[in-house]
């Protein structure tokens, strides 16, 4: 595990955010695959990255830029090929020429329309280089358009060869036309496109006449017809030979020109590579700014402190889901310090989503993204780990408890680092006595560490101790219960949604050790059979 393992990525629904970053050029797509993750100590670089995201967010020509990037094609392979000394194909040279034209467009659009307040921003890293000599060589006619051909202008020899070829071709057609006319005159036959005539075998006289004549020669037959073609006169043969020779010479000369151009591409290797990188960077930052816009994320305040403050944070995937089903998401505010923070509170109180929200926000920050909250202040983490108690390691054959413990062991090995450890219902699937013991020990263990740990638990007293920060979901404590009951009566099928509507998801700090017991209350509200609820209450009272 480096920054996040795949389970954490999945449980935070961070892929949902990554999917919203959509670079359009092959260079941007490649760049996204190697997206940088910022580590503690790299705060300044992160700030620069976030400034860039902001710059593109404010850039008035962002749509034009996207359009240009969408038409930028991959030429990396061809450039490498040239560097290795291979001769490029015409189509490859054409593509490199087009790439350079696209780069020029990116440069003009990007640099000429920088937002006013960013004029002094250092964009050295995003500056496309101009490759004047290569540009000139690929446009020998100074057309300034993106077409390409091994133009006559490349060499006098080429013009000469092509002219001679044309002349020979003309003579050849003339000679063939002469024969066509003769064939027409002597046999009243018209040659087809392949210079052939098809004669039925029944026409013996005509066949004899053709066989004796000078103009046609037997080519092939099927059981109905003989097929004759033009007999090559010495003149035609001579012209054909000459033509082939000219063609070979032309191809040789074209190859020589392509070789020179390939060498020139190779000479410009570094600058071409630079430009590809710049296009990739621009594309990725633009895509990041697009993601920020779409998710209404804001620029975070980066500090070097080992603390996290999230005001009105949103877990994006949950928010989207709720929106689509007609409800709304309640943003959550948390302040976290190194050591353990315990979250307790009602079932259905959104504790798991809060954990995910914290992890997702921190992951976004480390990936150099804007964050989905109203305000963020805090420092970077070396790693993020979330345990939701349902990870199973199929390959290793471990149960969920085994997988959970094995992951935690790996995480605890990194105690020197500044991690973010999020644990949902630790040991929730095991027997309560041992579960309690393990939970309490781990809460206390993590409280002494450099990492920020957030743990949700149902175990009474596991969070005991002065030093441990305790947060509680407000839940159903301040509501008009009669009103809620009435609403549930009217529409019992929508119980879950109605309770969710009344639920107060906000967190408040509590001092005592008592964990609220909302489970039975909610079970009752949700319409669990009354005898069961009553019996359960009895058991608790007896205890």
């Amino acid at each position, binding site marked *: 595990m480096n920054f996040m393992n795949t389970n954490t990525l999945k449980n935070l629904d961070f892929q949902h955010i990554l999917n919203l970053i959509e670079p359009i050029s092959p260079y941007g797509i490649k760049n996204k695959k190697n997206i940088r993750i910022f580590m503690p100590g790299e705060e300044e670089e992160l700030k620069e990255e976030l400034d860039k995201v902001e710059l593109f967010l404010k850039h008035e020509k962002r749509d034009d830029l996207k359009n240009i990037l*969408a038409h930028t094609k991959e030429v990396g392979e061809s450039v490498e090929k040239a560097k290795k000394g291979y001769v490029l*194909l*015409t*189509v490859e040279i054409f593509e490199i020429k*087009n790439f350079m034209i696209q780069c020029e467009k990116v440069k003009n659009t990007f640099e000429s329309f920088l937002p006013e307040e960013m004029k002094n921003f250092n964009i050295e890293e995003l500056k496309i280089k101009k490759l004047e000599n290569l540009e000139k060589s690929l446009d020998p006619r100074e057309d300034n358009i993106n077409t*390409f051909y091994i133009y006559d202008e490349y060499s006098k020899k080429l013009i000469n060869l092509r002219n001679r070829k044309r002349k020979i071709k003309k003579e050849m057609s003339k000679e063939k036309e002469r024969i066509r006319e003769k064939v027409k005159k002597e046999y009243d036959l*018209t040659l*087809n496109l*392949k210079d052939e005539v098809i004669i039925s075998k029944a026409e013996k006289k005509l066949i004899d006449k053709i066989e004796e004549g000078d103009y046609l020669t037997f080519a092939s037959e099927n059981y109905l017809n003989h097929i004759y073609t033009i007999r090559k006169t010495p003149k035609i043969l001579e012209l054909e030979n000459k033509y082939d020779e000219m063609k070979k010479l032309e191809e040789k000369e074209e190859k020589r020109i392509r070789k020179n151009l390939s060498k020139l591409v190779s000479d410009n290797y570094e600058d071409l590579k630079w430009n590809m990188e710049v296009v990739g960077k621009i594309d990725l930052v633009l895509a990041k700014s697009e993601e920020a816009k779409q998710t209404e994320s804001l620029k975070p305040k980066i500090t070097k402190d080992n603390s996290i403050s999230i005001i009105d944070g949103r877990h994006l995937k949950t928010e989207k889901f709720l929106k689509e089903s007609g409800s709304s998401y309640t943003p959550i505010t948390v302040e976290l310090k190194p050591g353990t923070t315990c979250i307790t509170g009602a079932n259905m109180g959104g504790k798991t989503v809060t954990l995910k929200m914290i992890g997702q926000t921190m992951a976004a920050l480390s990936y150099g993204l804007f964050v989905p909250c109203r305000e963020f202040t805090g420092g970077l983490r070396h790693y993020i780990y979330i345990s939701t108690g349902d990870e199973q390691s199929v390959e290793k054959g471990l149960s969920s408890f085994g997988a959970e413990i094995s992951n935690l062991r790996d995480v605890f090995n990194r105690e020197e680092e500044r991690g973010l450890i999020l644990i949902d219902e630790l040991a929730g699937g095991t027997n309560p006595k041992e579960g309690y013991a393990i939970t309490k020990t781990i809460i206390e263990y993590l409280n002494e560490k450099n990492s920020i740990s957030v743990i949700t638990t149902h175990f009474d007293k596991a969070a005991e101790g002065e030093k441990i920060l305790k947060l509680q979901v407000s839940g159903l404590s301040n509501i008009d219960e009669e009103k809620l009951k009435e609403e549930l009566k009217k529409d019992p099928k929508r119980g879950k949604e109605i309770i969710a509507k009344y639920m107060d998801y906000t967190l408040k700090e509590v001092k005592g050790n008592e964990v609220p017991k909302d489970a039975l209350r909610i079970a009752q509200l949700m319409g669990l059979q009354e005898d069961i609820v009553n019996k359960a209450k009895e058991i608790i009272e007896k205890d």
Partner: protein
Amino acid sequence: MRLIQDIKKNYKTLSIIGLAKNSGKTMTLNYLMHEAKKINLKLGITSTGRDGEKTDLVTETEKPTIYVEEGMIIATGRKTLYLTDASLELLEDTDIFTPMGRIIICRVVQEGEIQVAGPISASDMQKVINILWKYDIDNIFIDGAIDRKTVSSPLITDGCIIAAGAVLSRDMKKVIEKTSHIIECYTLPEVKDKKLIETIKNINTTAVISKDYTYEKLELKTGLGNGAKIKNAVKKDTKYIFIDGALTTSLLKNLVDKDNSSYKIILRDGTKIFVDPYSWNNLKRQGMKINVLKRIKIAAVTVNPVSPYGYVFRSEDLIEGIKKNTNLKVFNVETGGE
């Protein structure tokens, strides 16, 4: 009027389709390009999917390459440009992808042979057509194809030329029957009832439609039993049945019976018909009525009497046989054309 004059005027975009592999499609295309040159038509050329290879991929028989002339504008996949004999100026790199690479627009500088591999989907083909028109050409020829999955080129062009060949059957009568059947299907009468056209536009799926244009939509899954399902939905006042998709023999048999064929069957177009000629003709006698939303215009039919499997028909017999069933121009390009 010579065919090429007709094409110049009435078929700005023309697809050439073969009823089978080796039915003479590429020969027909070469012939038309040659004719176009005689009257100085500036052509744009592309194809559906990969085509124009030296040997046919399916039967490995020899297949003529496309011979392009100076000035023509070609739209073809990038990889085909590695192999061309013709000299090409590369004009434009598009964003349209094909199995042979992105479509690149080229101008022929020196004539020669070439492979042309165009786009696969109908929407991409439409994009390619739009790009080609930018280059000051008179007509566009598409080396086309009829395919259930990919683009049925006659639907997006002004018309088509059908290449039929001996390869269709060893029995010449069958070749004539199959060719005539396809011609009939493609040129079925178009729906004239404007209110019906409007209604179908709104329905956009298989449905039975009553006299007063009220309708019942039918959710059909591919497979058996659809015919019965449609038939069950038919009421006394049903005037039309719109089939959104393929019309197969078994489906059609279910829809037509002797007593009750008061309704018309409506299809999108004739390429959706997959009914054997024998059943088709039988059902026609029983009173089946089929109209289409789009009729395909056929400019001419070409025949190739030579089969790659070694047998040959008399060219004149084949031409005469097809002509009995249609008023279209029918000719053999190999024996001199029209």
